[in-house]
């Protein structure tokens, strides 16, 4: 085995900085690189209607420290605003709603800059968008006048800026994310239980040798040594013996159950505990770890994607292509290299860790070589390749809003068909009617149930005969275009989580519409 260098650069002994202290609870989720991305971001909110859901979303972005935000809103604060919007006070009455909200939002975090628009009455939205100002993401709340909407949609398409639509009325809401093109994510933060990849059915020579050496004389080991053989080594040892007697590895469920018995029988029971913990761990790990790693469909989607010209020179797609070639050659993804904790002597465990780390490094080196052979490959940081390889099984691609659009008729057909089977499948009813009814009021402050139904019927001709749609239309009409603070706060919470995921490129955002029903307390995510 080649010599392994343990990466032990001694960390600084200084305590945390003031910023690290303030942001401690979130740095544990998205780390310094995620925080930097937030601090570099500038978010624009086009606010209208009763005006709360967008401000509630911003609140949850100002607190964790986005760099800058701008609110565009030509409304003047009224009494009704004070009953629903927390970021206005008595003094705000009669003043610019944008300016007042910015002032009270900024109080939350002195590190965040806030700006508002218009500064003068009658100033046009084009002025705001034509200024040489680069936004990271634009949000708009509905209802919105059609011309403003067209303007901001066009702008975000041209500038390739993610757009978030927010609509909250009464007990209902939805928000929709329009991404400008495909959105790949490396740092998806899978559950730690899902990431174990031990390659027990395809061990490389260093790992096999290590296991063989530790189990060479297994019957005669002292109680201490026997009870501390790491379960990875135990499984490798018993798998080898199983294969010798059965001709192949256990693959079916029945085989694996028998294999578990086989492992279990190896534990010594003539001790005070009546068993050995490392054997218990080995038995418990059989079903999950004795498997041929298969390639998840989300990774396959990345491999199958044909990046366009702009994409193909980006580091993600260059590395993805190199990993794909690695996979085609070895029929395995690069090894993540982490080893879960298990009963073992410290030094043995560290040796085992190093064997996995060394293999992971070797895989990274191979991928890096392919990356470097690409015309733009030299500019790519090795750290990025390492992260990609470590997360290779969990990379994810979200397609842009323009890719393979499905008509609302088709979506409705699918949703209402599964609703018919709902009593049998015990699945909750589709929330699509909520989207349809809110969407029907995208450009009007309020509407009657029959107005709403008439608009829905343009797309879904038999809408009026669907009792769910009729009731939901009545409920939307009941709200009369007014927001309920709770529903807007909840929706703003969800939307801000999604904005954080998009800006930090961590975790997995929705694709692409989330509908909330505050009556049954359910959400549904649909691609619309």
């Amino acid at each position, binding site marked *: 085995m080649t010599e392994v260098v343990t990466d032990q650069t001694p960390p600084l002994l200084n305590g945390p900085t003031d910023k690290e202290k303030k942001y401690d609870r979130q740095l544990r989720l998205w780390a310094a690189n995620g925080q930097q991305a937030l601090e570099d971001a500038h978010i624009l909110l086009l606010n209208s209607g009763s005006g709360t859901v967008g401000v509630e979303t911003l609140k949850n972005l100002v*607190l*964790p420290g986005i760099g800058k935000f701008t609110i565009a809103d030509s409304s003047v604060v009224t009494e009704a605003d004070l009953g629903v919007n927390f970021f206005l006070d008595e003094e705000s009455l009669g003043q610019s709603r944008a300016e007042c909200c910015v002032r009270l939002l900024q109080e939350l975090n002195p590190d965040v800059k806030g700006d508002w628009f218009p500064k003068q009455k009658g100033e046009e939205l084009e002025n705001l968008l034509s200024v040489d100002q680069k936004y990271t993401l634009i949000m708009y709340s509905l209802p919105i006048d059609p011309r403003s909407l067209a303007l901001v949609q066009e702008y975000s398409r041209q500038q390739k800026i993610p757009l978030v639509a927010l609509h909250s009325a009464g007990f209902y809401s939805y928000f929709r994310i329009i991404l400008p093109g495909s959105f790949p994510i490396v740092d998806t933060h899978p559950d730690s239980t899902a990431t174990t990849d031990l390659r027990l059915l395809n061990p490389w020579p260093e790992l096999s040798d290590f296991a063989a050496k530790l189990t060479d004389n297994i019957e005669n080991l002292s109680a201490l040594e026997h009870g501390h053989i790491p379960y990875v080594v135990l499984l490798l040892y018993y798998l080898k013996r199983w294969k010798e007697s059965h001709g192949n590895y256990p693959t079916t469920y029945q085989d694996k159950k028998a294999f578990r018995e086989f492992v279990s029988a190896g534990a010594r029971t003539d001790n005070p505990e009546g068993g050995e913990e490392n054997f218990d761990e080995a038995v418990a790990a059989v079903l999950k770890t004795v498997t041929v790693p298969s390639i998840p469909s989300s990774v396959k989607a990345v491999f199958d994607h044909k990046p366009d010209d702009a994409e193909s020179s980006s580091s993600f797609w260059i590395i993805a292509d190199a990993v794909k070639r690695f996979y085609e050659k070895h029929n395995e993804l690069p090894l993540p290299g982490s080893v879960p904790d298990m009963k073992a002597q410290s030094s043995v465990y560290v040796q085992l860790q190093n064997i996995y780390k060394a293999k992971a490094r070797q895989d990274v080196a191979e991928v890096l070589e392919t990356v470097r052979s690409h015309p733009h490959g030299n500019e790519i940081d090795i750290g990025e390749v390492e992260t990609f390889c470590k997360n290779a099984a969990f990379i994810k691609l979200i397609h842009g809003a323009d890719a393979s659009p499905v008509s609302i008729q088709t979506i409705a057909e699918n949703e209402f068909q599964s609703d018919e089977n709902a009593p049998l499948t015990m699945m909750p009813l589709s929330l699509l009617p909520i989207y349809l009814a809110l969407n029907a009021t995208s450009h009007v402050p309020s509407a009657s149930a029959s107005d709403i139904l008439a608009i829905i019927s343009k797309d879904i001709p038999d809408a009026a005969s669907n009792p769910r749609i009729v009731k939901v239309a009545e409920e939307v009409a009941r709200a009369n275009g007014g927001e309920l*603070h709770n529903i807007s706060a909840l929706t703003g919470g969800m939307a801000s989580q999604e904005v954080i995921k998009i800006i930090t490129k961590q975790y997995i955002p929705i694709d692409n519409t*989330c509908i909330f029903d505050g009556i049954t307390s359910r*959400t549904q995510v649909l691609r619309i």
Partner: protein
Amino acid sequence: MSQPVMVASTLQAPTVPDSRWIYLDNVRQKKGPFTDEESFDASGEAVSAMEKMKLLVIGAGGLGCEILKDLALSGFKDIHVIDMDTIDVSNLNRQFLFRQSDVGKSKAEVAARFVEKRVKGVSITPHNCKIQDKDDEFYMQFNIVICGLDSIEARRWINSTLVDLVDNENPESLKPLIDGGTEGFKGQSRVIFPTMTSCIECQLDMHAPRAAVPLCTLATIPRQPEHCIEWAHIMAWEQEKPFPKLDNDDPEHITWLYKKALARAQEFNISGVTYSLTQGVVKNIIPAIASTNAIIAASCCNEAFKIATSTNPSLGFEENYMMYSGNDSIYTYTFKHEKKDDCPVCGNIARNMEIDPNFTLEEFIESLAARPEAQLKKPSIRSEQKTIYMQSPESLELKTRPNLVKKMGELVEDGEEIGVSDPSLGSVNFKYRLRFSKPFKSH
């Protein structure tokens, strides 16, 4: 786009001057297609009845700040908030009622003053103390209790207190309990009608405690950075006592633990000990962000609003639990958690518990802390016949201490019922029926 556009000038929502609560009244004074007509009252009387309701918010932290804001803007006028904590700088990334200059002050007081000032006409009464400091009479005055807590223990205490308060002769004694919790991008909200629907104790096994690392691993065979930190925390500190008492919030103390852990990690070639990890392990820090708190708090307050107004059906008697996860897209699961007949708090039959009769009483008591369905840390135990072990008063502890080394088989019969109490969880007596999993070998 060449045509000039005015910013959303035509879309001011329709309002009448001086109508602060017009959006709330849209739903409070008009029934909808899902409204239960029998309980809904569209008259102004219902609104004034709602304004007279007294609500208690437990916790003025990440969830509590949001809950106070949401309730004030839901039309509630008489709100109390209870929290014993003071404001720390690491709260400021989400507890949005607090500023840098408030660090060190009472959370309940600062939060109450802030919301009272911002929302005209709402009264918020702060209680800067532990929930255990208040008696039944205090809790009896409220109509709805909403919890935004980070500790299971406090939840269990208020849950058992509210279950105990229920008097079938007095409908006022039944206080709906709404509970929220978050961790990172995930959270849950649930509605409990004490004694009528599944309670926090019925649902306890959904929040299993994290398995503790065996002491021998810490002492002799550490493998993870966390093992080195726990070693410094539990063993090195006790041995060396660098300061009289460990204060998790004192950076000097954390630095001491960090250096100790780091040295130990280097000795064993273990990488990954950092200051941040040390702090996380020692204080058992749970990641927390504003957005998740906003979601869960608003969900709780939406249910409180629906319960108070009957404007729409609430969670409770059917579905009573909403799980939220935002790590991978958005996923929620709203379901009915069934009430358990053998719930030690709200059930009427003893819960079966399998034990090895060859365990000593001390071992049994230790196991109670780790069992997901019990999680009792300082239990006192009585059997039908006798007192087996009492944590206090001291005289009784002394008297029952000799039982600790006795085997369970000596102290109880197979199938016998025991009562367990734990003062941190209220006055409730947890009932278990012990079943021997193995034959008892008396010697």
